[in-house]
Every structure is written in structure tokens, then in C-alpha cells.
């Protein structure tokens, strides 16, 4: 046993081993999503595990700088482990894009790293994200396609009782423009709206000099959620200028197109969803599953991002938190047996060549086959017991000139190996 010095734990906090069963479940989810995204023309890309800190420092992103995991390069430059999937992909696209007219459909399956220094509960510092990014299309149908794919992802992952909550970043941005508030106050107000904390919002607004009309709308924003038709009607009454009405109409049409496809039951609206406004520039959405406390997919339009890398491409996309999905599907009790050994071939020394050939032949037919050698008969029982405890359903024993097939407690003596195949093994 390795004893680490200074009482160090074997693994740093916030990272974990993934055991085979969990990893198989995870791979299973991943492959479903890969198939789906591929069928829509999204092609998988990968960016480096670490990049320059400066890249993420200069970009208006969605992660706190303090939460990035930093390293120092040989020349003293600071590196960070990939804190986010979208920004590097945007950098990559902006770098190789030469044609402003082109579009790119990309998918990713990747780890992101975030420090989480809450002392009470250190949560994962390595998260798996899966998602798509659609660059170069700024029309409504692109927004609709991305949301559609988020819904189809949920369906293909076997998730039920989920909600996709739609918002419109610009409705609120226009309102802020109208309010002419200083940034400090703005932050306080925005925080209260995000928390749906109307009582404190009222308190803060009381001490400001904002126009009464704007105040009324700011106070109503946290309550603009729920049934879409209702929300849109209320929001239209509250809109203070044409731009707000326009942004709202856009949201309404996106919603209607999704309803037309038959996704109405999955959708709700929340105009108080105003997180990460520096980043999102249009339709935004979050997906929730019943009885899981956190959103499992977050997405939206971010048209300004590639501009910061010198290539103006409109963009929209989403990212799934695969670890959360895994937690939920594990709770559903779905367990795959497709990776468990189903045939065990045992042979004596003189039958070794024949035994190994048989094992290979069985593998080619798609079985998962393990093989082992027995020196004498007395070892056989132990080997069989072990195989059974590992849920191996068929055990084939080759000894002298006999072939024995043990299947569900029954033992059959076969004349010949070919009889195995006649039995469909």
C-alpha cells in the first residue's frame, strides 16, 4: 500500500475515479447524443485541455476568474485548465474562419475544470459537458433548431418530466438602457431580479431616482414567468419602447415555432432569467428535470463572442452537464449489461490452443469472452463459482476430449465444439 506523505489524501478534493459501471452509463449517454448531433450535421471538435489565462481574462464569459484552475508555463505565462467549452471553440472557429458568409455546426464532449472553494462542500472540480454550437446563422430558425436539439437530447437521454425555460436577454437589456442607472446600482437590481426577490427590489428602487414607469416594469420583471401566452401578454403591456416589443415578438415567434413542432408541453417562459447578460445577446434557455435541483442544460445566443477574436460570426448553442444527467439516470435504475462478460472458456493445458481459438471465434460473433487455464480438475469448481459471481452466464470447459457447457446451473456434455455453435452461442 502506498502511504502518501504528510497525511495527504490519495486524490485531491473535487476529483474522482469513475468506476466501470458508471463510465459505461456515461459512455452510453454520450453515444446517444453523438448519434443525435451527427444526424443534424454537427461535427465533433476538441480544443486543448489548457490554454492561456489571458484568453479567458479578456473575454466576457460566464465563469468567475477566481474559479479557473491555473498553472504556470515555463516562460512564466499563466495557463488555465479549460474552464468553459464554448469560448475555446469560438476562438478556434474565429481563427480558421476566412469567409464571413460561412456557417459551422460543431459539437463537443469535453471536461471543464472549475475551482469550487466552498469549504462546507467541495463539489466536483472536473465536469463533463456535452453540447453543440451553431456559428454563422443569425436567423430565427437557428435559435429554434438549437432549442429543438436540446429537447431532442432530453428525449434521447430517456429523461422525462423536463422543462425548457425560455428567456430573452434583450428585453431586459433594453429596459436597463431605458432606466439610465449607474453600474453599481444596476448590479444590485439585477441580483434581486435573478433571485425573484421582489421585496428587496422594492426597497432598492424606492431610493433611486428612476422614472416611475420604468420602476413599475423593473418590479414586474421577476414575475414575468410561467404560462407563455400569459407572460407574453403581460410583457407586451409592460414594454416601454418599440425595441422591447420587437425583442418580445421574436421570443413569441420562437415559442410558436416550437409549439408547432409539438413541443409546447415542455416549454415555459421566464423574462426574469437574466444571468450572464454580458455574454448572451438574444434568446436564452435553461432545462430542468423534475426532482433534480440544478439546471442540466444551459444555452442561448451569443453573437458578440467571436467578434472578440476578430471574426464576426453570430452564434447560438447549449451545453449539457453530463454528470448531472448521469446522476438522474442512475436514480432511474437503468443499468446496462452490455459490457458484462457473457462467456467464460476454461481449458486444461493440453487443450490450450483449441480453447483460445474457440474464445476468439466466440468474440468474433460478438460475445465478451474471458479465458483461463486449469491445471487440474480440483481448480474447476472455484473457477466456476467465481465466474458465476461475476454474472457470467455461460461457462465452457474443455478437458481431455470432453466439452462441457454450463448454462444456468445446467451442465451439458457436448460431443464437439461445433455443437456449441449449433446451439447459437
Amino acid at each position: 500500500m502506498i502511504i502518501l506523505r504528510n497525511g495527504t489524501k490519495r486524490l485531491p478534493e473535487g476529483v474522482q475515479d469513475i468506476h466501470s459501471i458508471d463510465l459505461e452509463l456515461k459512455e452510453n449517454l454520450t453515444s446517444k447524443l453523438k448519434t443525435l448531433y451527427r444526424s443534424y450535421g454537427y461535427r465533433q471538435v476538441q480544443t486543448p485541455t489548457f490554454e492561456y489565462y489571458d484568453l479567458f481574462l479578456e473575454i466576457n464569459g460566464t465563469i468567475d476568474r477566481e474559479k479557473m484552475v491555473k498553472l504556470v508555463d515555463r516562460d512564466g505565462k499563466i495557463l488555465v485548465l479549460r474552464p468553459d467549452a464554448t469560448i475555446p471553440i469560438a476562438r478556434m472557429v474565429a481563427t480558421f474562419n476566412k469567409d464571413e458568409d460561412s456557417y459551422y455546426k460543431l459539437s463537443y464532449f469535453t471536461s471543464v475544470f472549475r475551482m469550487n472553494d466552498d469549504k462546507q462542500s467541495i463539489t466536483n472540480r472536473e465536469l463533463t459537458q456535452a453540447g453543440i454550437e451553431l456559428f454563422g446563422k443569425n436567423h430565427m430558425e437557428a435559435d429554434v433548431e438549437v432549442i429543438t436539439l436540446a429537447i431532442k437530447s432530453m428525449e434521447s437521454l430517456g429523461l422525462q418530466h423536463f422543462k425548457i425555460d425560455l428567456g430573452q436577454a434583450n428585453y431586459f437589456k433594453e429596459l436597463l438602457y431605458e432606466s439610465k442607472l449607474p453600474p453599481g446600482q444596476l448590479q444590485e437590481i439585477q441580483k434581486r431580479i435573478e433571485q425573484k426577490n421582489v421585496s428587496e427590489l422594492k426597497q432598492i428602487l424606492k431610493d433611486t431616482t428612476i422614472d416611475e414607469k420604468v420602476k413599475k416594469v423593473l418590479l414586474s420583471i421577476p414575475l414575468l414567468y410561467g404560462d407563455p401566452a400569459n407572460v407574453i401578454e403581460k410583457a407586451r403591456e409592460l414594454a416601454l419602447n418599440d425595441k422591447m416589443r420587437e425583442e418580445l415578438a421574436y421570443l413569441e415567434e420562437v415559442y410558436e415555432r416550437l409549439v408547432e413542432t409539438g413541443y409546447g408541453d415542455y416549454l415555459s417562459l421566464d423574462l426574469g432569467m437574466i444571468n450572464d447578460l454580458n455574454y448572451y445577446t438574444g434568446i436564452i434557455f435553461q432545462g430542468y428535470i423534475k426532482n433534480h435541483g440544478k439546471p442540466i442544460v444551459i444555452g442561448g445566443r451569443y453573437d458578440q463572442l467571436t467578434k472578440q477574436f476578430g471574426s464576426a460570426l453570430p452564434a447560438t448553442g447549449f451545453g449539457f452537464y453530463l454528470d448531472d444527467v448521469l446522476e438522474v439516470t442512475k436514480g432511474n435504475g437503468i443499468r446496462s449489461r452490455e459490457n458484462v462478460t457473457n462467456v467464460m472458456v476454461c481449458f486444461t493445458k493440453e487443450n490450450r490452443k483449441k480453447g483460445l481459438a474457440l474464445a476468439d471465434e466466440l468474440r468474433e460473433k460478438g460475445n465478451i469472452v474471458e479465458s483461463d487455464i486449469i491445471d487440474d480438475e480440483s481448480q474447476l469448481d472455484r473457477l466456476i463459482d467465481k465466474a458465476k459471481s461475476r454474472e457470467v452466464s455461460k461457462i465452457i470447459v474443455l478437458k481431455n476430449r470432453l466439452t462441457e457447457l454450463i448454462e444456468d446451473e445446467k451442465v451439458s456434455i457436448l460431443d464437439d465444439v461445433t455443437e456449441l455453435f449449433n446451439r447459437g452461442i
Partner: protein
Amino acid sequence: MVKIALAKGRLEELTVEILQQIGIGFPDLMEGSRKLIFDDTSGRYRIVLVKASDVATYVENGAADIGVVGKDTLMESDADVFEVLDLGFGKCKFSVAGLKHQVINPNQKLKVASKYPKVAKDFYEKKGISVETIKLNGSVELAPLIGLSDVIVDIVETGRTLKENGLEVIEDICDISARLIVNKASFKTKTDDIHYLINEMEKAIGE
């Protein structure tokens, strides 16, 4: 089913009273049972009793859908939840207190003892004063008396404890009262049940 996280004590009693008023009764709980989980008579609501400082954790992670928690513990935990209702009871204040005639020199590092180090740190950070916080778990009033810290940040209701220990309030930080918090996912996926509850509770406390 809607799960409600409450902390044993006054907030819990007052919350159960409000729930009673809107027709959600927990007979077992009223009888003073020592269980930690209680279902209401309709079977649609469940109360779980947890430690006050854990209410926000339960709700943030979705183990409970809603919770009632003092603004003090909520500020300290900085939980990512919807804070939908000020229930208006459990009122007190966050204040800075110290010895009488305590001089606070902005050019000198200030030592602050508190059960709420985050609240203390945030408050002074906003004022641009650098502080060293010392986390204590009780009898915070002692700290300035025996020289552990210059001042304390604590909740003050009547100010009697401070006075008896020769301390006084130097400045107030903010008002505190009980808040109804909701898990963000529950808010979206159990919309009807939770909105009904919020609306009814709001009506009940308005009366």
C-alpha cells in the same frame, strides 16, 4: 409532493401557523413529535426539520423544494435560490458592535469576530476597509471584551445582551427577517403547486 425545509424553533412554529391558516395541517408536528419528517393530512406537502444553517443547503441542492430561513443565514451561505417572499417575522438587524468609544481607524487593520464572517467581510469590503475576520460559534460578545477582536458583527434584536456586556452598536448593516426560498428547478418543474403555496402564503401574511 412539495418538500418544505424548516429549522426547529420560532421560524418553524410561525411557518406552520401560516400553513395551518391556508389549510395545510401537520397534526403530528403540532403534537410535539420528535420525528424529523412530517406529512400533511392531504399527503401533498412534507416538512423536513433541519438545522437552521442547513435550510439553504437543502433547498439549493433540491433535496427540499422550498424553505424558510432567516436572512442572516441566507446571506452567510450565499445560496443560489429564488428568494420569493419576505415573511415579515423573525425581525432583527445585522449590526457592528464594539466597546463604547471604540475608534475605528480606516488606516489600521480591523479585527472582526462573528458567527457570520462572510457577511462581515462583504460589508467592510463594500466600505473599502480591510479586515481580518475570526469565525466564532457563540458568545460573540466576549471577543472585544477580552481582546480577541476590535468589533463584532452579529444579529441584534433588542440590544440587551450587548448592553449588559458593556458593548454598543456602532453601525447597522441591514434588516433581517424570515424569507421563503425556493429551489430554482422546483420552481420551474413543480410550478403549479409551488405558486399556489407562495400566493396563499403571501395572502395569509398580508392579512
